[in-house]
């Protein structure tokens, strides 16, 4: 179990490094290909940083708002709070605030930038459908997301993906509007080599949103396995989470408040019922297949 955690952590770090390198290459291309040169790059970086800062600091509230979650007190849901408090003790973290989504589809997620301000959000369905041991497994999974700073990482990855999308969008635009102007200005300059560069840039501009999406999903998939493993470490009872995952995935009800942007936050993909299986879906899915997660838990 310890091995699995450290291996997963390394893979996650490698993915984040790869992501940063990717963004660097993309900005470098931007400088090279557009007629804007250094000035355009500075503008792009400023706008990107501004967006990132706003996204970073209000991300948890945005997520909770989109998910139609409401804060609850201990008097309303003593059962939920007792379980959360217990696992906060087990992990040595401050007790997160609890939020509830009024939806009968069973699911849960954690949000926040650091353990001190983290929140755990569950649907009313999960409280009704799981027994105590199973709910402890789910909350332990979310607590591990908080403890490993997954919630922050996921926010950062979302923001990074946002920047990539923004940049590639910009590049495409500058070809369409600014490209002609540049050609006019540089008439008589170098020919073929520059054309090749523009082609490469164009390919990158078209591909980058896809690449970014896949990277984003890969990060979240690795970390689901990691959170399963460290969650099992907290409860010392992997079978509880395995049984919870089985119950949640067997439930066919869709979660109305979830969408493509927030799907990767949940413990089990809330959009699972909206599409069929298959190889491509597996590559693009936000979560590893439930059977693989259950098998990994049963091996512990």
């Amino acid at each position: 179990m310890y091995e699995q955690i450290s291996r997963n952590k390394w893979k996650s770090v490698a993915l984040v490094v790869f992501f940063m390198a990717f963004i660097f290459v993309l900005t470098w291309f931007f400088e090279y290909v557009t007629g804007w040169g250094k000035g355009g790059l500075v503008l792009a970086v400023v706008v990107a940083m501004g967006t990132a800062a706003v996204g970073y600091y209000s991300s948890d509230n945005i997520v909770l708002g989109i998910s139609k979650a409401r804060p609850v007190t201990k008097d309303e849901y003593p059962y939920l709070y007792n379980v959360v408090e217990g696992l906060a003790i087990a992990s040595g973290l401050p007790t997160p605030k609890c939020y509830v989504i009024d939806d009968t589809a069973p699911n849960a997620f954690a949000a926040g930038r650091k353990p001190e301000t983290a929140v755990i959000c569950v649907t009313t369905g999960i409280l009704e459908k799981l027994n105590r041991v199973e709910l402890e497994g789910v909350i332990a999974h979310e607590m591990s997301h908080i403890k490993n700073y997954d919630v922050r990482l996921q926010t950062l990855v979302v923001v990074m993906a946002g920047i990539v999308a923004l940049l590639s969008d910009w590049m495409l635009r500058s070809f369409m509007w600014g490209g002609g102007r540049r050609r006019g200005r540089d008439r008589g300059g170098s020919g073929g080599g520059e054309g090749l560069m523009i082609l490469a840039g164009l390919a990158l501009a078209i591909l980058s949103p896809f690449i970014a999406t896949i990277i984003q999903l890969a990060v979240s998939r690795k970390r689901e396995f990691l959170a399963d493993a460290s969650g099992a470490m907290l409860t010392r009872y992997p079978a509880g989470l395995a049984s919870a995952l089985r119950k949640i995935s067997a439930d066919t009800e869709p979660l109305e408040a979830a969408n493509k942007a927030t799907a990767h936050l949940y413990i089990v993909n809330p959009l699972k019922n909206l599409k069929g299986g298959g190889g491509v879906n597996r590559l693009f899915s936000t979560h590893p297949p439930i059977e693989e997660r259950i098998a990994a838990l049963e091996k512990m």
Partner: protein
Amino acid sequence: MGAFILLLVLVGGLAVMAIGMYNSLITLRNRCDNGWSQIDVQLRRRYDLIPNLVETVKGYAKHESGVFEKVTLARAAAVNAQTVKDQGQAENVLTGALKSLFAVAENYPELKANQNFLMLQEELAGTESKVAYARQFYNDTVMKFNMRQQVFPSNIIANMFGFKPREYFQIEEEVAKGPVKVQF
């Protein structure tokens, strides 16, 4: 001159290592204390809930005085336990007594429907799992602390400053975490 500088660097390096080891031992010892006080908080909470529970059950099941007495005695023994080991044993007895109390409650449908009883039952179950988690956290920390005192080279520092290994908080049967067996 060169040899002197080399010696100075060596001694300085060793001193920094020793300070680091000493500090991590102190940190772990404080973490053990903190872990223990967390168990204590949850145990107190449990002791506070028990008289309420006994009173509530008494209201419906007056004739089961043997069970009430057992719970009350076990609670008193647990409250007065002094060492880590005694506390562990007293907790075992108390858990067993509470089990028989809930078994008695099973025979009184009206009691099982009582809102106050249900709330106490949930609070007690929640507190019990918190005790279990606090114990787990404490034992993990104790393991780290004891291990640090035994492995080389931090054992030298531990011996020099008289660090003592801590006791684990043990319960005999894994009641809380074991898979639940249902028989029909």
